[in-house]
Every structure is written in structure tokens, then in C-alpha cells.
């Protein structure tokens, strides 16, 4: 492609490994919308793209970093936050972004999620919550609404789902927000704030999996799914005045936490300064 054509392309493409496109996501999957929103948020936060490192676990959403032209660590199921904790502590200069899903973050990685929030380590976590295990073929997840159908819930999910934004807020994160794929502008704004927050940031994005969640729950097309989101969202300020009954089946969107408290890697670095008079080493494997 000559540069003339090259420049006339979707604004996200310049950040992607074009030799890997098109990506593996199904038509209408929310992952790509969230990726676009991430780049928009990154640009408005005036982040240095070359300084971003992405970490992910296993699942469809965890495949995102592999398509981005940045350092990426595609790890084991549920453990992205553990790897990211080591990466960020080892080099706090990096802007570490974690992409994870509802199964990855809330089921197998649930413990790491609350502990990373408790430590308030400066990571920006984007949790793509599509209420289903997509990559393995549509099994219910810990966020599947009660009564929703999945390949392991042919009679409907029997147990109550986690409310992830609320959970992570309670665990102590500095910045928490929830948006959906029909709010890409607000989402990119939340990502901007998350990137700028010096502490643990958790942005939950309710997203569509038309292939599995949609097909099993009478929302067959991507368009059906985003119409459903539009109809179901309630902003947090309004939701705060509603009863549990009124909120049944609703998606609460907005900011859940935005505060400053001590950040984890700064504490570790300060301890080093106190104990040996200098900050923690960076890239010392090449020197020591």
C-alpha cells in the first residue's frame, strides 16, 4: 500500500499489527469497539503509545493485546493481573494495560482481581464483560444474569451473578467505571481517566457476544444486542434512587469510584529509597 492509501484508513489501524488482520473476533463482537475506544482514550490522555505494555489472560478479549503493535504478554487463564503486577513493579515507568474478560477476571482470576484492587497497583484494567465464555463455545460465566441461557445452563443460570464494578470498588480500586459498547465516547473518556489515575483502574464494559450469548438468549444479531443495551442501561445517579426491584435486568452505567490513595509500586520504590538510598533497579538483569 502506498502512503496515500495508507493514511486513509480507520484511525485505530495505525496501532495494530496489520499483518495479523482481520482478527479472529466474530462479526459484530464488541471487542473491536472497545479497542477503538481504548485508542481514542489513549490519545485524549496524551499517552505515549510506545510506552504502553498490554497484559491479558485467556479468552476472546485476552486476544486483543496480540493485535496491538506494543509489547504484550498473553498469559495463562485468570492470571493476567499477577503477571501485570510483576511487570509494573519491575518497571513502574511502563504504562501497563490489562485486557480481561468476565470468565478470566471474575471466575478463575477472581482472587487476583480483588487483591490487585486492594494493593491499588497502577494498572488500567479493561474488563470486557459479555456474560458468557465465548472462546469455548457459550458456557455461562459468573456474570451471566440469573435465568440466562448458556451451553452449560440449558435450563437457565441458577446462581446470582457478580456485579464487577461494585466488587472492585469495594476491594479498594482508585478508579472504577462501567459502560457498554453503545457508549463508546463515554467509555473512551473513562479509559482516559483510568490511564491518568495513579492507582488501580477498572473499567468494566458490558459487551455483546452475538454468536453465543445472543443466539442462546433471543438476541440473535449484533444489532439486537446493542439495542438491548440501549434499552437496559440506567445511569448511576438515577440508579442510586431506584429500588432493587426497579433495577432488575438493568445495566447501571457510570463512575463507581474516583479517588486517590497510596499507589503500590510507589510504596515499594520509596521503601528502597529509605533502606538503601536509591529507587528500585530497572532492567538490572543486564547489569548485575
Amino acid at each position, binding site marked *: 500500500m502506498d502512503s496515500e492509501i495508507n493514511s486513509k484508513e*480507520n484511525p485505530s489501524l495505525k496501532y495494530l499489527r496489520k499483518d495479523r*488482520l482481520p482478527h479472529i473476533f466474530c*462479526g*459484530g463482537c*464488541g471487542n473491536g469497539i472497545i479497542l477503538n*475506544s481504548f485508542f481514542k482514550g489513549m490519545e485524549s490522555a496524551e499517552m505515549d503509545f510506545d510506552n504502553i505494555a498490554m497484559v491479558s489472560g485467556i479468552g476472546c478479549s485476552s486476544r486483543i493485546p496480540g493485535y496491538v503493535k506494543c509489547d504484550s504478554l498473553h498469559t495463562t487463564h485468570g492470571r493476567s493481573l499477577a503477571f501485570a503486577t510483576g511487570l509494573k513493579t519491575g518497571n513502574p515507568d511502563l504504562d501497563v494495560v490489562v485486557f480481561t474478560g468476565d470468565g478470566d477476571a471474575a471466575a478463575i482470576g477472581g482472587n487476583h482481581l480483588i487483591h490487585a484492587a486492594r494493593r491499588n497497583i497502577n494498572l488500567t484494567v479493561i474488563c470486557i464483560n459479555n456474560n458468557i465464555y465465548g472462546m469455548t463455545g457459550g458456557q455461562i460465566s459468573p456474570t451471566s444474569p440469573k435465568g440466562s441461557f448458556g451451553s452449560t445452563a440449558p435450563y437457565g443460570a441458577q446462581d446470582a451473578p457478580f456485579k464487577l464494578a461494585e466488587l472492585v470498588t469495594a476491594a479498594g480500586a482508585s478508579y472504577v467505571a462501567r459502560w457498554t459498547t*453503545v457508549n*463508546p*465516547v463515554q467509555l473512551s473518556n473513562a479509559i482516559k481517566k483510568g490511564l491518568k489515575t495513579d492507582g488501580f483502574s477498572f473499567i468494566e464494559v458490558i459487551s455483546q457476544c452475538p454468536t453465543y450469548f445472543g443466539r442462546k438468549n433471543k438476541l440473535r444479531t*449484533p444489532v439486537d444486542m446493542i439495542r438491548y443495551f440501549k434499552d437496559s442501561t440506567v445511569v448511576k445517579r438515577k440508579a442510586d434512587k431506584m429500588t432493587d426491584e426497579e433495577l432488575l435486568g438493568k445495566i447501571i452505567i457510570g463512575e463507581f469510584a474516583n479517588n486517590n490513595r497510596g499507589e503500590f509500586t510507589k510504596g515499594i520504590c520509596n521503601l528502597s529509597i529509605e533502606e538503601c538510598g536509591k529507587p528500585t533497579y530497572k532492567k538490572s538483569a543486564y547489569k548485575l
Partner: protein
Amino acid sequence: MIKINPNLCKGCDLCIESCPKQVYTKSKVSNTKGVYLPNPENEDECIKCHLCELMCPDQATYVEDEKND
């Protein structure tokens, strides 16, 4: 100018759905990949809000801003 990259578009129709000005319509015939591409039939209506770019999961849409000349 609006462009759709036929190598990337998977025909999910989210641009058609999300455009506030109903710029896009769905093609009547599928391309060689079996995708019914969106067609920016009412391009004159486009207000350059770029929402379709943001809502395109496959990074296939491109909306060119008017040149300030």
C-alpha cells in the same frame, strides 16, 4: 469521503445501526467473502461525527474530514 475496507468488514451492520444520520444502507448482494457490505448511500448527510469508525469492531470504516482549503 467514506470508505469501507472490504478485507476487514465482516458485515455486522453496527455502522448502519449507530449512524445518527442514516448514511449507510446494506448492500443487496454479498461480496466474494459472503459479506453484505454497508454502503454509504446517503453520504451527503454525513456530519463527520466518526461514530461509525468508533463502533466498527473490525476497523473497516474510514470517514475523511473535509479539507480546510
